[in-house]
């Protein structure tokens, strides 16, 4: 027999064992119904015909006869890029469990993608490197009331679960006088502070999200406020919102975001004369925890007609620059941007700022705390484990700052100056990423946050199957298999809007119960902002860094 000529193998060809996700297919179970190929939005599988060689021997002695058959099969497509993302839609729709994606830990995608395409990989989701472990999971609520003070009853007692959004004046600056009846009276105006639920639905734009998904979130928020009684607010994200909503009473539940691209703001400004309610707040976005120092990016393929309409732009890649072009310092931003946003709504609407957590966060917060005009209504700090719709993978995985210690630093910086609570602290970046929003929020509040905001979790509630282990993360492609981050009508139709809204509402109801189940054991009926004495950790480094009790 001739030796096989190994030279016929082209080693630089991409093969299945190079890929991150491999399709495991069992032809014996397959009925060739075709659902998997129809469901795959990434065009990662296709029908093929394979040749089968059958060898048969029927006599007492070996007397093989060979026949050839052709068998239709489902096969993975192998390309230089745009391969299977492991979303599992094929598995979901297969009636016979004949097909599924399997993660290939020996994949060479990081090398191949760059080498083949001269292109930095882009994706959505959040950091996929698990180098440090989750700090919040190392912290327990360990100061449980036993004999010295009683635990409360989560089901019977009442709890005041609210957080301030807006500039809070120091007590001595409150414009109060005592009248002849011994009552305090206001003698001057003061910044407006809104009391809202301590969990804000984070800024995800129409455009990044499908309009239907965004609508589902808005519906859930309206329901939570008007029926359930939880004053949950959502942030629009950069990209405006439908005119109809801007002119509706539901605007009061919306925090309008302005970012460096100013997308959507000409529509917002035009709608102002017709607004019947003020928005809940304005959030100036400077940076994003998932990709700090990087701008926003909405691929042209997602800029469909209605997105063009809302944002007031033509169809093209929409890039928000990494910084606000007109700002060059903290003081100047306070004077220029905060002042103009405050005055736009005649100082009735709190204006806050969102920055990516950074080594410099404390300096920024300190500067804002000195805000002489009392117009900085909140400091939103976003950590590395936050999500995004589109970014270069290198930014997602390798830039950013964990949120926990930086939030703590900012709180303690305020304490050091006796200014805690004056500019409310809101923290995000992986809050609730394990599905345990209440516990994460509670621990952050004990460390000094007034509240938290969360985005990616909301998508997961809606049915996003992406995770932090390389699964899907294809929000940037416009091909979201569950209809959440796409503008493709067929895909969006996969999303049951009412069901999404219902699940978000349910999740918040459950979270509210869980917050009470955490408040009650430590005997608190209002939020324990800065109650770090309630926290313990078995990790000495965490204890030292956060100044909480080390236990073992």
């Amino acid at each position, binding site marked *: 027999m001739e030796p096989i000529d190994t030279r016929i193998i082209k080693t630089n060809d991409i093969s299945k064992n190079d890929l991150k996700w491999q399709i495991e297919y069992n032809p014996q179970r397959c009925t060739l119904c075709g659902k998997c190929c129809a469901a795959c939005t990434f065009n990662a599988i296709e029908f093929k015909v394979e040749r089968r060689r059958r060898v048969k021997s029927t006599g007492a002695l070996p007397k093989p006869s060979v026949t050839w058959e052709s068998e239709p099969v489902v096969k993975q497509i192998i390309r230089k890029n745009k391969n299977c993302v492991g979303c599992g839609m094929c598995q979901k729709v297969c009636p016979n469990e004949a097909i599924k994606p399997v993660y290939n830990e020996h994949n060479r995608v990081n090398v191949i993608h760059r080498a083949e395409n001269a292109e930095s990989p882009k994706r959505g989701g959040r950091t996929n490197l698990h180098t440090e472990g989750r700090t919040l999971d190392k912290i327990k609520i360990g100061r449980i009331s036993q004999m010295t003070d009683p635990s409360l009853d989560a089901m019977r007692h009442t709890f005041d679960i609210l957080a301030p959004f807006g500039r809070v004046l120091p007590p001595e600056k409150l414009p109060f006088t005592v009248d002849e009846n011994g009552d305090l*009276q206001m003698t001057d105006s003061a910044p407006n502070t809104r009391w809202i639920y301590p969990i804000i639905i984070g800024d995800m734009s129409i455009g990044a999200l499908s309009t239907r998904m965004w609508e589902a979130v808005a519906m859930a928020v309206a329901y939570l406020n008007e029926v359930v009684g939880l004053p949950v607010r959502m942030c629009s994200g950069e990209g405006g919102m439908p005119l109809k909503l801007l002119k509706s009473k539901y605007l009061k539940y919306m925090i309008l975001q302005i970012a460096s691209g100013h997308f959507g703001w000409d529509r917002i400004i035009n709608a102002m004369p017709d607004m019947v309610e003020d928005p809940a707040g304005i959030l100036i976005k400077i940076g994003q925890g998932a990709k700090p120092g990087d701008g926003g990016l909405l691929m042209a393929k997602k800029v469909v007609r209605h997105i063009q309409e809302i944002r007031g732009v033509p169809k093209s890649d929409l890039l928000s620059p990494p910084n606000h072009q007109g700002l060059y310092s903290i003081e100047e931003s306070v004077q220029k941007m905060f002042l103009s946003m405050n005055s736009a709504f005649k100082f009735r609407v709190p204006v806050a700022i969102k920055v990516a957590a950074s080594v410099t966060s404390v300096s920024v917060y300190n500067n804002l705390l000195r805000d002489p005009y009392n117009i900085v209504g909140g400091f939103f700090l976003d950590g590395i484990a936050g999500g995004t719709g589109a970014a270069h993978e290198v930014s997602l995985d390798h830039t950013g700052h964990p949120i926990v210690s930086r939030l703590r630093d900012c709180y303690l910086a305020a304490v050091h100056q006796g200014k805690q609570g004056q500019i409310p602290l809101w923290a995000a970046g992986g809050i609730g990423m394990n599905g345990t929003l209440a516990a994460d929020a509670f621990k952050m509040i004990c460390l000094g946050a007034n509240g938290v905001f969360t985005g990616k979790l909301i998508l997961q509630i809606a049915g996003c199957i992406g995770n932090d282990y390389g699964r899907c993360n294809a929000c940037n492609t416009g091909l979201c298999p569950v209809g959440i981050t796409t503008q493709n009508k067929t895909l969006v139709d996969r999303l049951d809007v009412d069901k999404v809204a219902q699940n978000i509402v349910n999740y918040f109801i459950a979270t509210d119960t869980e917050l009470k189940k955490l408040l009650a054991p430590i005997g608190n009926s209002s939020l324990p902002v800065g109650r770090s004495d309630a926290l313990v950790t078995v990790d000495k480094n965490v204890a030292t860094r956060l100044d909480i009790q080390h236990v073992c």
Partner: protein
Amino acid sequence: MCRIGAIKSKRYLHPSKALELMRSQQKGHDNSGFAFVMQDLGGVFENYKELPILSMACTNEGMHIAEDILHSIGFVRIMQWAPDVRNDITGLNIEPMPNYVFQVFNYPHSYKYAPQEEKEALLLNTRLKLRKALEQADEGYVYSFWPDVLMLKEIGDPRDIGTYFGLWQENKDFCAKIITAQCRQNTNYDIVRYAAHPFFLQGYTALANGENTFYEKNKLFQKKLHKGYIGFESDSQCFLYTLHYVNKILKWPLKYFKHVITPLPYDEILSRKDAEILLRIKASLAHLEVNGPNSIIAVTPDGTLFTTCDSKKLRPVVVGKTDDTVIITSEVTGINELMPDRDISQDIYPNEREMVVVDNDLNIERWNQ
């Protein structure tokens, strides 16, 4: 659990009344100490109402240190009184200091025409200086330096402390119209004299039965508010500092103390006419809110005595009255002991949103938050 008590009377009362008040409640405390504050003094102090009195427990060396400091500032001692302690009785459960000092001083000459605020600042600064000096030398404790106020804090069994200081025998030299007392050293922190209730600052006295679970956030906030807010040996000191801050520094009427420590729920605030004021208090003074079970008794500089409690009413307190005396204390047994013949139907068991306030004519008002 602590037991706390306060007596306010039209007559001058001897501290033995406070001992009797607390003794009947002794099952509720561990008999680990006795501390009291006397205000609106009679007896030998009656004629010195305007002049500061130093209350101090110290060693001989501590005396020297304090005298030097006071002298250097210009204070002139014009009267002193010391309890007749019973060193001769053995076996008492008490850890006495060598000297117990109650001295009346004249202000320095330069303060003769000084406004009240300057005098008050001087007294506070002087007390802090004395406390720091004695603390550094470990030679004693300075409890108060303020007009018309005496304070004593001691470690041991209250009965034995009473015996040691001769407090069981009524004595017309040593009496006051307002006495607040407590019979326990705190359990959460070290047993040190400063940690015992009542706490006193610039005419304000406060004592509490309970646990302030917002101690950490109260403390971190208060530390930056006023130089008199020091020590924090007990979570209950936070009540005193908040009372002082709201009423003396911010100059808000007393009723707003309740709005600061136990703000109304948001929805309830919204339904009120003063919603805007209350929401601003809730936001700006969020770090002075208290949580956990507490009942508080306090005295303000004008002699007003009041009690209030946490927002869930998790600790007891009761108010009883006769024609010339009002008692506020943790358990009714204490009131029964001192006022067996009163009309018990007039006893008040305050609710979670109330302040019960007693003025100098012993009129009792119930303020609903």
